[in-house]
């Protein structure tokens, strides 16, 4: 069963009130979402807290399921927006580049199946915020530019420009580590 099929089946069960299906869905997306949110808030506890809030919204809204990527887009968009809310509350819109951090190693260990993705994730920290977020969606979450556009609220034109710059920087960063993009 593909990830999409599994996700669809779980979602259908969840919408019919199956608690176990909801919990499985949560576990399926939790870590990726939390790591994504972490890129905004720079704090693992806060990121987890926000991820919980995203799933609360899922419980409440039960948006229509239009495929795994769309579902993921919904989750990540809400995650991004709640993160921005959180940053507003802190009265600062973004961590400075110096403050940008990766998630704790233990979290990475449990999330990344391949060494390549882990290296990629770590290399992303060297990028400016917008590029970092874009690359995380494309390379870590395997989402398309269309979906990244929706999640980040940035025009396609700008996304491509960001992507070009980010790839260049990433390649350089990864080469140092002996990994390829």
């Amino acid at each position, binding site marked *: 069963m593909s990830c999409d099929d599994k996700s669809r089946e779980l979602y259908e069960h969840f919408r019919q009130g199956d608690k176990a299906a909801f*919990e499985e869905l*949560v*576990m399926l997306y*939790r*870590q990726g979402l*939390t790591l994504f949110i972490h890129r905004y808030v720079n704090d*693992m506890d806060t990121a*987890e807290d926000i*991820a*919980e*809030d995203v*799933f*609360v*919204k899922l*419980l*409440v*809204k039960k948006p229509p399921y239009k495929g795994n990527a769309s579902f993921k887009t919904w989750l990540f*968009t*809400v995650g*991004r*927006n*709640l993160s*921005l*809310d959180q940053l*507003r*509350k802190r*009265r600062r819109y973004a961590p400075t580049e110096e403050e940008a951090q990766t998630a*704790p190693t*233990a*979290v990475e260990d*449990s999330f990344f199946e391949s060494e390549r993705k882990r290296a990629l994730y770590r290399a992303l920290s060297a990028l400016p915020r917008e590029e970092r977020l874009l690359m995380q969606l494309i390379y870590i979450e395997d989402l398309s530019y269309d979906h990244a556009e*929706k*999640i*980040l*609220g*940035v025009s396609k034109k700008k996304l491509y420009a960001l992507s070009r710059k980010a790839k260049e920087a990433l390649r350089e960063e990864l080469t140092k580590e002996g990994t390829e993009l």
Partner: protein
Amino acid sequence: MKDREQFIENIYAKKEARDRSIRKRIVAASGGMLALVLVVTALTLAPESAGNSPKPQTNGPVIPTHQYDGALAGDSTEISEPEKEPLAFLSEDEELMEYIQSPGTVALTAPIDKGELEEFIKEKEESDGKIRVVNTYGIIPLSEVSYGGKAFTEIFEVGAYGYRFKDDNHPAYNRYIDAFVAWRGSDDCHKIYKELGEKALGGDSYAEKLIMMETKDMFYELVWSKEQSEAELEALEAEIEEYHEIWAVYNEKAEEVLRTELKDDLEKLVSDGVGLCCTTLNGETVLVGVVTAEQCEQMNEFLENSSLVCRLIYLNPSSFQVNDDGESVTIVTVTSEAK
């Protein structure tokens, strides 16, 4: 990272807390709406000058006024001859009079919770020492209310949907709806929204929250249209939708109120354990919202610990006089004679 069980448990707990909060707001909102309606209708009939201490109206059937309870003494007191002067017991009770004449210039409206209120007032005290009135229902242009406006140093009017309640069977009600709609189209109103919007954009989360309770149109038009990306607007829209869920129920409830006699609803509120909450404004006691005795007590607890000299009085709804003269006119103000 939290373990699976903890993470899932937190989600359910948050969902439950959210549901509880919405239920609470629905109750508060529906009650508060009614209270403000009552204030407006009362004001419509009251003498124009605040200093004249308007007398309670006495036409129409009267709900006997036998007791008050709550914040002052926590007990019940028999009141003599309530039919002649339903609220006379206030001026006859020295202790109560002293209580309600304590200076204070704060008016509170539900539903803002204690924490929000505390934060808000603290912030304002620190900024310029003035106290604002935040009327989250926004259906009454308080700046045009003679006795209220004088006491307030600044007024925010934030609310929604007043126009939806217009009902030809209730002319008195419609008068204030007309006034409200006119006010909403006025420069003053736009100015207030703009200021609020600027505060929100400047990171004032309270202002932001208030705006989120406003209609989407107004929200987009005046506040976020140029400043926010589409995705942010979508997210905010999702937040607004949540408020709309609350307001939808609130609207339904308010319309239901209009379809029935206000008196009946007051009686229902009594049976629901809800009373009216008053505060003192320059020696006058003014109804500010419909709350439970417990909520009133909590508010007082907060006020006592603050630098504000102001107390709320919880009045059992049986203390109110309800007119039934065909125009749904209802008098619920509690006024003090002495200054």
